[in-house]
């Protein structure tokens, strides 16, 4: 059992408030990812949970116990750092058993735990090496191994994959997902990479400017972003956002006018909208199609062929650029004139303040 509760957590450095009243419940055995652009406070939030930074105000509860004043090592957490932070002068085995040694566990007990963790991570043959003799991926596994031997209630990961090259990153991502499955532990993971967030998380917490923008499962965030920031941040390539204004509305349909005198019916509740209100229309690249009947006309300016799919960047009349996901064998060429079909059922509307309608 390990739940983590954050109640109105704030953190200031001198006069600068970097974490602004975070409320969050992290369930037992869940995999929660904090994601956001750099400087959004996600790493600071993790360090507050870890006990490496002092909480300015608010309460942090682990399994219902307030731990604000409990030292880092007594909170029952283990952390994996971005730089791995291995002890360079110690062997892999000593790195992994350092916490046990400090806790006064005898040599036999330490060895057993190290061997168990090494087996999970396939590090058995590397135990007598020093960190500098290991590759990036191996170092990362040692850092995870060091966390595992402590048998923590909660694992904390601070951008653990950002120092690895692309191929290794995908591989380690899978390993971490499997580890979560096999260890059955609560994990909190910080990343600026929304792909990592989408693939690993049970629950994503999107942060901006020290505050939570939205909390939800990956698909909830993808399908129902609460505001423009989340809409643009989640999804790759990101959502197309077009300026528009309200033309007319009924109870469950809003008719919007897009640049180029295009009108579109979007099935959302109109709430407080008035005709002529400025709004933003969002539509994901996979929901735009090339079609002779397409409402938006424009010119292809860039073609990106990834094999299984092709992304077309189209400059539409009226000035905006949109991204369209098509099949890999789409024959479109740069400078082609195309018509883009847009379906109101797949569109999101955001009001002038950026909130989803």
């Amino acid at each position: 059992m390990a739940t983590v509760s954050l109640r109105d957590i704030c953190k200031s450095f001198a006069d600068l408030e970097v974490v602004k009243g975070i409320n969050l419940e992290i369930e037992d055995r869940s995999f929660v990812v904090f994601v956001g652009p750099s400087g959004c406070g996600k790493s600071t939030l993790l360090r507050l949970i870890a006990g490496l930074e002092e909480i300015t105000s608010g309460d942090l509860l682990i399994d219902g116990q307030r731990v604000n004043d409990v030292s880092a090592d007594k909170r029952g957490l283990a952390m994996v750092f971005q730089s791995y932070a291995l002890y360079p002068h110690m062997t892999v085995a000593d790195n992994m058993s350092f916490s046990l040694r400090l806790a006064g566990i005898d040599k036999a007990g330490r060895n057993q735990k190290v061997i168990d963790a090494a087996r999970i991570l396939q590090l058995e043959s590397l135990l007598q090496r020093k960190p500098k003799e290991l590759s990036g991926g191996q170092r990362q596994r040692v850092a995870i191994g060091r966390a595992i031997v402590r048998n923590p209630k909660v694992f904390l990961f601070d951008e653990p994959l950002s120092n690895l090259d692309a191929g290794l990153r995908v591989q380690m991502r899978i390993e971490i997902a499997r580890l979560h499955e096999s260890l059955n532990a609560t994990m909190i993971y910080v990343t600026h990479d929304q792909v990592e967030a989408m693939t690993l998380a049970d629950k994503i917490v999107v942060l901006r400017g020290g505050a939570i923008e939205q909390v939800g499962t990956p698909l909830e965030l993808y399908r129902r972003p609460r505001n423009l920031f989340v809409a643009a941040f989640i999804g790759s390539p990101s959502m197309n956002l077009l300026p528009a204004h309200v033309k007319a509305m009924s109870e469950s349909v809003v008719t919007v006018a897009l640049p180029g005198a295009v009108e579109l019916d979007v099935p959302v509740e109109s709430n407080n909208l008035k005709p002529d209100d400025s709004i933003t229309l969002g539509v994901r690249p996979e929901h735009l199609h090339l079609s002779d009947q397409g409402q938006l006309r424009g010119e292809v300016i860039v073609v990106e062929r990834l094999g299984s799919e092709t992304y077309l960047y189209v400059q539409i009349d009226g000035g905006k650029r949109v991204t369209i996901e098509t099949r890999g064998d789409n024959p479109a060429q740069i400078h082609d004139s195309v018509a883009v079909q847009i379906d109101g059922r797949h569109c999101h509307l955001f009001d002038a303040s950026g909130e989803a309608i």
Partner: protein
Amino acid sequence: MKQTFFQKLIITLIAWTAAVVIFFPIFWMLLSGFKTEIDAIAAPPLLVFEPTLENYEAAQQRANYMSSAANSVFISVGATLLALAFSIPAAYAMAFFPTRRTRGTLLWMLSTKMLPPVGVLVPVYILYRDLGLLDTRIGLIIIYALMNLPIVVWLLYTFFKDVPKDILEAGRMDGARPRQELFYLLMPLALPGMASTALLSIILCWNEAFWSLNLTTSDASPLTAFIASFSAPEGLFWAKLSAASTMAIAPILIFGWLSQRQLVRGLTFGAVK
């Protein structure tokens, strides 16, 4: 940029000139030590002469070289250990738990090195007299440690700052108390830097003359006082003085030579990454 032959020649010449200018006094001292007193003051100076070992013999008879050398070793090492014992915790605190005043404190410590020592000679002398520390090795150890403290703290501070903070934080997550963090993580990681700091401190202590001349008479006299004893009221004995000086600097020269790689590596550590 590729250097022309001419540029290389100029640079080489400048380097050699500087090296010769720096080395010449040492070379002359070495030479004079093997001359007779007459040859040593001959004008014009003699480059070719009949070498003799009589000055070394005389220097040994006149003052006790071995006891001075032992004092130098004991005092230099003792003062260095004492300075490290204070500096390591100080540098640790300043490097990893800085406050708004840390920078100022460091600069202030360094500024004390700019004070001419003679300015505090009288109070220090009176203090030492009253405390019974005059002409004691422990007295010199204390004053040397104090003298080197600012430099040792500064150097250790820069070495400690080069140790990634993450590693110490990982240690903290693993349950290391500050003392364990210091002994198990920081000190092993900063060992090259600490070694070169210690070497530098030993060399500075070995070469120190002002305090040793003023605070010792015989029992605790290190080699610097041993050399000075050859400029006697009866006159200067250049040849014997040179022989004594050669004997005094020989150990530290050999020590410095053997450790120069460590020294240079340590002192440029962090500057060239």
